[in-house]
């Protein structure tokens, strides 16, 4: 039996290679890798030259929206779709709720972005609970349709409520106050990018933490076989609600920052297209795998901006690239874990 274990070496999958490299590294090496990766990401706003630059759009702005925001939202949606296997087509609703919370409170009260952030997150979570309680009794396609409806309800309600601007939206949303020497302005969006980066890192930390604990196992069990999960004592409704509201919280946080960044929001920014694009990021990158989702979202957000110079043809090229990739890698660019810990263990054993 011991022999059998060592024989099953990974099939040269990039994800597996990265993960085994990580697990084989010593704690100090891991810290070094993590710090340098974060440092590299933090320096991204300064890399807007040469091949990386976006010819038509402003590179700094592209990094914040769509790239940063998409990564953040895709990570949030990944908890719902990738981890727990609940197909949510109305994710944009939580983004909208966060954005509207920021816009309304920002223009009518003296609260600043950082003070509104927790309120926006709380309201998005609440919306997640309100949607989840009835909707999570449904499964699969039915759940998808209800969540799709919810996304549209939120958008159409915003469109028809004159108090919050109706179709005109809300203008003059304040930018966040400066933190020390770091100032937030539309002309130089580095500060926004760093805030998004911090939010992304927090989300990754949260997901990684939960994945190896009770909640992560519950989600994983629900995704694989909900009936069996329940018969093995998993309180499925509770954990599905948690999954929904944590996903919503991330979406809400992204929304608050987005409103504070664009200074103007309107219902047409929160269409079904956004939900589907975020879902595409998750599926394209690799459902359930954090690094896959990050990679998928970066590519899907960045690519259309990079090829903006071919104007109308860009969506065609983009769609074609999507179809081809999904044909060759149906599980996404970096699929979820397929390897077994034993491989790494024996590999470490060999080294000694």
């Amino acid at each position, binding site marked *: *039996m011991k022999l059998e*274990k060592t024989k099953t070496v990974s099939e040269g999958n990039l994800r597996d290679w990265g993960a085994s490299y990580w697990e084989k590294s010593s704690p100090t090496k891991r810290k070094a890798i993590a710090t340098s990766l974060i440092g590299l990401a933090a320096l991204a706003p300064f890399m807007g030259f040469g091949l990386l630059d976006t010819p038509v759009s402003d590179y700094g702005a592209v990094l914040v929206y769509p790239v940063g925001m998409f990564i953040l939202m895709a990570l949030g949606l990944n908890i719902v779709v990738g981890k727990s296997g609940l197909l949510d087509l109305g994710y944009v609703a939580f983004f909208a709720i966060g954005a509207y919370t920021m816009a309304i409170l920002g223009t009518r009260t003296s609260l600043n972005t950082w003070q509104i952030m927790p309120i926006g997150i709380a309201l998005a979570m609440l919306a997640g609970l309100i949607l989840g309680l009835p909707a999570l009794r449904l499964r699969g396609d039915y759940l998808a349709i209800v969540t799709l409806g919810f996304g549209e309800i939120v958008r159409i309600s915003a469109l028809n409520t004159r108090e919050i601007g109706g179709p005109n939206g809300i203008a003059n949303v304040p930018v966040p106050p400066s933190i020390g020497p770091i100032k937030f302005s539309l002309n130089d969006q580095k500060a926004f990018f760093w805030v998004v980066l911090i939010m992304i890192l927090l989300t990754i930390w949260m997901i990684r933490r939960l994945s190896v604990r009770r909640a992560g*196992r519950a989600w994983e069990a629900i995704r*694989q076989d909900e009936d069996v999960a*329940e018969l*093995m004592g998993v309180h499925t409704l509770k954990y599905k609600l948690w999954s929904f509201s944590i996903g919503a919280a991330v979406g809400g946080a992204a929304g608050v920052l987005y409103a504070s960044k664009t200074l103007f929001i309107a219902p047409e920014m929160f269409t079904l297209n956004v939900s589907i694009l975020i879902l595409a990021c998750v599926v394209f990158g690799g459902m359930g795998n954090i690094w896959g989702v990050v990679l998928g979202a970066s590519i899907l957000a960045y690519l259309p901006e990079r090829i903006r110079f071919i104007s109308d043809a860009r969506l065609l090229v983009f769609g074609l690239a999507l179809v081809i990739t999904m044909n060759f890698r149906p599980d996404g660019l970096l699929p979820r874990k397929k390897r077994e810990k034993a491989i790494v263990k024996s590999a470490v054993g060999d080294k000694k």
Partner: protein
Amino acid sequence: MTSVLLVYFVMAAAISVLAIKEDRLQKSFIWQGNSGEDGSRKVLLELQDLTIKFGGVTALNAVNLKIYQGEILALIGPNGAGKTTVFNVVTGVYRATSGQVLLNNQSLSGMKRHHITKIGIARTFQNIRLFGDMTALENVITATDVHKGSGLLGGLFGTPRARREEKAGRAKAHEILEFIGIDEYSDRLARNLPYGVQRRLEIARALGTNPQLILLDEPAAGFNPAEKVELAKTITRIRDAGYTVLLIEHDMSLIMGISDRVAVLDFGQKVADDLPSVVQNDKRVVEAYLGVPADAS
């Protein structure tokens, strides 16, 4: 005066009814006695007049069955007799049309499935239903989670309690895998495991919920004779470790070898419930399996 008489009359009637009930209880008590020394045993699970109908089909018809603490009760019967339906009602998958299931004299009607698991009933599945993308160990840890007090937030912020429980759950899961004899596979993904190991992992996962009663649905399906012998030993060890086992099986030699009692279902009705040796020679059981001889009817 008449009112006093009436009161006396009602009381007398009540007492006699109770006495008759008591008598019936006593009788069943004595009758159970012939299956061994379990006259002194505690009833763990009781099915009372359990009936379940799917549309016009009666899957179970007024089934009464008692399972005593610490025994192996085998549930046998031809295909479609309602054996798995019993499991599904006990674990809360189906709702009984009438009658009820009692665990330690507590009714399970209306209870949520995960709650039934929590108070002590776990099961395996006829067609293996493991969490394939998890390792064997994770499968069992997921089951041990049912008794943890710390939830999502505890895990997120790494409270001392969550850490302690996480560690304890892992140790417990290893212990169970060791007990079932498959600990060497603990880090393998469940879906990559050999068939026999998967079947045993199902049992390990059920034990992970720390049940009082474990329901095994055809655990020997697809096993060769040697594996069946091994399984029989495992089931006996599970019983000896203090669990009560309700077993659905088709392999007669396995059943006759390890069960303390055998209950037979046929067309949703219980036709026998006794010691293995008695059941084996029961006319109705033979008829249920082989049919009624032509000249007898």
